[in-house]
């Protein structure tokens, strides 16, 4: 329990640090992007929007930094991330609320599939080391070095253009209205197939490699030898004794590499014009939509923190030692 409380405390602190970082970054960097934006959108920005921009970027000359910081926090608690330029005059919070579910479904499901598949394959490869299966390692190695977005491009070129099996962009049929009908869900799954495949293929290799190495290390432990000597069935030794212990570092690694994977999946969304948060970020970059960029960064960071916390809890549940040490 004490362990969990400490972790929660750590994540709260990290969330505070990320939000504060988000507040200070535009103030520390040179240049004055906002003034140029206000000029560009002359007459189209309401006074409200300009005021929230000033708070966001510290253009208010007659308030102190500290006052700005407090206003920033109070805005955040009211769900006010400013007004988006790209989707003017929609508030950033609304844009994010619309796109977040898409990302959570796509990235969440495909990351977990990738992790489970990769870990299982790693167990097999680690157990049967020294056989022909080791020949798969260089392949996994190659795939782990490929950027997500390039694999996405290749997937589109092959399965979207050359053999048009799957739609190459979008999240659902343009003719459908988002709802919980069978048609819409079917279309959404159909459109998600290619990006999901890309994410699974590019993330699976990393898990295979780390799990395989842990299996190799764990399977020469004494307790595995004893289990083997007792004449337990091979499956039981493999999963119940070796894999069970080897998976622990993989789970804590899952938590730590989540930030990296999420970065890659965001770019995958950009390639597929998938209506998730990554594509929103892409459009925000294209039109220099700073409030939207910052809002997206905050939401991504907070989601990663929540996912990390979940992984920590799973870890504490699986490994009694963490609970004892407190």
């Amino acid at each position, binding site marked *: 329990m004490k362990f969990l409380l400490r972790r929660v405390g750590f994540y709260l602190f990290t969330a505070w640090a990320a939000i504060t970082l988000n507040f200070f970054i535009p103030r520390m960097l040179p240049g004055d992007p906002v003034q140029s934006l206000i000029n560009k959108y002359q007459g189209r920005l309401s006074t409200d929007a300009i005021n929230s921009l000033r708070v966001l970027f510290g253009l208010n000359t007659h308030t102190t930094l500290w006052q700005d910081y407090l206003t920033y926090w109070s805005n955040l608690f009211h769900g006010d991330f400013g007004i988006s330029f790209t989707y003017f005059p929609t508030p950033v919070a609304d844009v994010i609320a619309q796109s977040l579910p898409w990302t959570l479904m796509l990235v969440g499901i495909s990351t977990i599939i990738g992790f489970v598949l990769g870990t299982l394959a790693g167990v097999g490869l680690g157990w049967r080391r020294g056989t022909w299966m080791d020949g798969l390692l260089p392949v996994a190695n190659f795939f782990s070095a490929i950027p997500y*977005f390039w694999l996405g491009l290749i997937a589109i070129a092959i399965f979207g253009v050359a053999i048009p099996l799957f739609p190459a962009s979008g999240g659902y049929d343009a003719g459908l209205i988002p709802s919980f009908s069978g048609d819409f869900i079917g279309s959404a799954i159909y459109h998600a197939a290619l990006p999901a495949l890309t994410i699974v293929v590019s993330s699976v290799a990393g898990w295979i490699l780390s799990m395989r190495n842990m299996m190799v290390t764990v399977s020469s432990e004494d307790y595995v030898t004893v289990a083997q000597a007792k004449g337990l069935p091979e499956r039981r030794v493999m999963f119940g004794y070796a894999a069970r212990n080897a998976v622990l570092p993989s789970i804590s690694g899952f938590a730590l590499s989540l930030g990296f994977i999420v970065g890659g999946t965001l770019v995958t969304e950009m390639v597929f014009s998938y209506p998730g948060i990554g594509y929103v970020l892409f459009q925000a970059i294209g039109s220099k939509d700073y409030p939207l960029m910052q809002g997206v960064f905050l939401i991504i960071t907070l989601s990663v923190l929540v996912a990390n916390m979940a992984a920590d809890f799973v870890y504490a549940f699986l490994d009694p030692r963490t609970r004892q040490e407190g």
Partner: protein
Amino acid sequence: MSIQADPVAVDPTVVVSSGVQLNKRGRRARLGIFRNTKALVGVVILAFFLLIAIIGPWIAPYDPSKVTPEALLPPSGAHWLGTTGTGQDILSQLIVGTQGVMVVGLIAGILATVISVIVGVISGFLGGTGDEVLSLISNIFLVIPALPLIIIIAGLLPAAGGMTIALVIALTGWAWGARVLRAQTLSLRKRDFVEAARANGEPLWRIVFFEIMPNLTAIIASGFIGTVIFAILSEVTLAFIGVTSISTWNWGTVLFWAQSSQALVQGAWWWFVPAGLCIAAVGTSLTLINFGIDEFVNPRLRNTAASAGILRKKKIRARIGFTPIYRGEEKEGVA
């Protein structure tokens, strides 16, 4: 290859067991890395790209930015990798772009490694409050997703050139190395040879640089290589999504133009396939070098790293659960 049971090599936790063995093992380390086939392949591929990076501007057959009427030609004798939608030579773009990729990767890698060594070693060596604060900072940087952070910083900067990007990547990518180094320093701090040095009255800087640091070489090296991979991938990704300047060439810029000019729909595979293969080749070469280092540090991996064929030839079978055992030529191998 030390497949025979080597008393030192059996224990994976021992990076270097004592100060006396240090020099001997240190020399073996340098040779050992290059004797490893994987690492050797990695070094050769990397050396090739580094060479291109240096001589690239002179050997590129065309000016990479020159617009010609020969648009969207497939690979031919005149244009080995074809041309872009505006008639630029793709091979020249890749060759000239290698420099940008390598320079940013190396600079970011060096900077991040320096930060991680400073933070990790100090935090592992000091202990106490200083350690807690430093670990807290590196853990925060570890969980905050780096790429989105890099994107918003680079996006806010008016003109983000190569150096700026390298700096931003280094500032966001040092945490992993710091964490690993801290753990290793913690375990070294109480070893006998460090205690002995302290008892001899060696100054702190000497203990850190001459007793602790040599034992961290492998970890620092693998951390450096890991950061370079991260930096190259980040840089190429940033260029691809158009955050950084699109006027200088790197592999990401090539892909940016391919994507924005609808190369996919037009079936111009020669426009986007080679750049990705280059990225993958550099990434793979660095990973291979890192494997070499890993296998050197962890002998259990080294034993099994020998390919199945070599093991079979030597009559060694990696039986389930057991470390492979060498039983000499006369026996049938392990039952």
